[in-house]
């Protein structure tokens, strides 16, 4: 599917963008008890809960794309406790999960992530794992488990040590004030894909920045990082100098609707 969607094996993949590119409609619904759903008729469509963190949404979307790829019958994936999607209990679910992990975290992309950060998975820090997880668009815990169990890049002991760190705590000291939204770690190895945020999220970006667009504003600067906060839907551009830049896309908080509209700027006379 990466080949069909034109995404290189070394790059991160946005399953929502891929779905749109291959003609699968994606919708967000504010449904607490529905994780995701795939419908074959009248044409392929994926429904996702708008109430989940982005890493979870991406994994669910990739999972539903797997059902499309393997032509499984339509079905619902119910919300469950932590990491429910890694606990497949039917052949279809197993296939869809394998598809999702291969799409989001192919070994080449994961290894490329470490190489670009001149890091060795065997002794990489929690922050480096967090930055790579965010770059790949997956959860920190998901990446650690996958690097340990599926890719054998890290030992059980290292995985246990990494899992003792909660993602928000890893970068908590880098924030000026606690964040109620998600915190995205963006380092200078972040290439080839947009930084996806929802209104209220904060990005901790390495170094100093110039930015264009009105979807983010400067929240705080330190000697090492620039904190930008997503304030309204739309797209923008971050320019860190020395050849580094990235696009940023902001969707409304818990956006409900067609995915193709999630980054539209609000019109001045918006009524709803």
């Amino acid at each position, binding site marked *: 599917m990466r080949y069909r969607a034109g995404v290189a094996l070394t790059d991160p993949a946005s399953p929502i963008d891929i779905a749109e590119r291959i003609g699968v*409609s994606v*919708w*967000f*619904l*504010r*449904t*607490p*008890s*529905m994780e995701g*759903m795939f*419908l074959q*008729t*009248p*044409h392929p*469509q994926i*429904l996702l809960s708008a109430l989940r963190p982005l890493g979870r949404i991406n994994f669910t979307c990739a999972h539903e794309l797997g059902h499309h790829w393997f032509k499984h*019958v*339509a*079905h*619902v994936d*119910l919300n469950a406790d932590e990491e429910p999607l890694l606990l497949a209990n039917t052949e279809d679910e197993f296939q869809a999960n394998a598809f999702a992990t291969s799409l989001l975290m192919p070994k080449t992309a994961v290894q490329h992530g470490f190489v670009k950060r001149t890091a060795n998975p065997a002794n990489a820090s929690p922050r480096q794992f967090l930055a790579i997880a965010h770059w790949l668009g997956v959860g920190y815990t998901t990446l650690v488990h996958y690097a340990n169990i599926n890719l054998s890049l890290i030992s059980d002991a290292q995985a246990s040590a990494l899992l003792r760190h909660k993602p928000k705590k890893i970068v908590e000291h880098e924030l000026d004030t606690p964040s109620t939204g998600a915190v995205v770690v963006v380092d200078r190895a972040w290439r080839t894909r947009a930084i996806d945020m929802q209104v209220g999220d904060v990005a901790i970006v390495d170094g100093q920045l110039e930015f264009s667009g009105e979807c983010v504003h400067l929240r705080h600067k330190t000697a090492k990082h620039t904190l930008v906060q997503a304030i309204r839907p739309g797209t923008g551009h971050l320019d860190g100098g020395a050849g580094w830049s990235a696009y940023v896309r902001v969707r*409304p908080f818990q*956006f*409900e*609707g*067609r995915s193709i*509209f*999630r980054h*539209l700027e*609000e*019109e*001045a*006379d*918006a*009524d*709803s």
Partner: protein
Amino acid sequence: MSSSPPEPSVIVDRLRTAREHAGLSQGQVAKLLDMHRPTISEIEAGRRRLTAEELVRFSDLYGVGLDWLTGKASDRIDLADIRVAMVARDLNKLKEKDLERVLNFIASVQGERK
């Protein structure tokens, strides 16, 4: 399925519902369809008649079926409906409010133009 001709209010209600479910404001719709914002407002208030061509454009933009938009199709699909039989197997595990939302969604996209 309804057999009686749709009332204009049905179309008006569904246009507004479909726009909100697509995640769009009236201003965004006006921009996307190259129409004036007050025109969208007039249409949703039932004060301006739609042409067949405009209905198709709204249907495409909102990703909903033309039959649903014009009130020819029900706003809620039945669990026994054969077209969603495979889905219904698991839908009964959803919380009632979410199930309602999902069934409404499925009803709206059935027969969507691709």
